[in-house]
């Protein structure tokens, strides 16, 4: 538990979360969501919860990003709003 590292990772998590919901391109949004999952995984591992971090790295950053990208390729890439 190093609180400086925690703070840096938390800032990255917040930046990625805000960017993922404000960006107009859905493909970029999916990739930024993958980056958010990866920073969340780093934060969890740093805080000592290795098992949850491992699950987040395998499912959140790995597989669900592929699912989002596949869904975006089958629908439109631009948001309406």
């Amino acid at each position: 538990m190093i609180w400086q590292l925690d703070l840096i990772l938390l800032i990255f998590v917040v930046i990625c979360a805000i960017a993922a919901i404000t960006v107009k391109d859905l493909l970029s949004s999916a990739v930024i969501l993958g980056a958010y999952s990866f920073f969340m995984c780093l934060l969890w591992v740093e805080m000592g919860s290795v098992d949850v971090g491992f699950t987040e790295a395998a499912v959140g950053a790995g597989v669900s990003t592929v699912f989002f990208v596949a869904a975006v390729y089958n629908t439109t890439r631009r948001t309406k709003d």
Partner: protein
Amino acid sequence: MIGQIEDVIIQTFCRLIIPFMQVFALYVIAHGHHSPGGGFQGGCILGASFILLCVAYDIGEAKGRMSEKLNVMLCSLGVIIFGGIGVVCLILGANYLDYGILHKLLRVDVPQARSLGILGIEIGVGFAVMAAMISIFLNLASRGEHEEAIEWE
């Protein structure tokens, strides 16, 4: 996306890295009960290796390795392993998924029986999660057709 781009760098790299991913996934499943990891994470990594094959080559090539029928059978096999171990415990006179009673069947002492029981559960969960991930990806990527590539719109 799938089957339209033929890139020798991507294909060679995927061919090199997929066996290591699968060995690592088997390690995660087999050591799930005394280190981080387990059936769900290992199954996800196994499914991700297959998804990588789909993305680097195409769906036809990947389905030559694992057909739709085999995929559904593996998914059901995982559920049967999970439920079967629980029902065996129930038949032997303990609660559902109470692995300690398996020492009568396996002829080992109780802690060893618990360790082997949770290993069987992890293997079942790994099979089911791997097949479910592959199935979700194939249905999403090909609009349920399971055949051809997706065009960019």
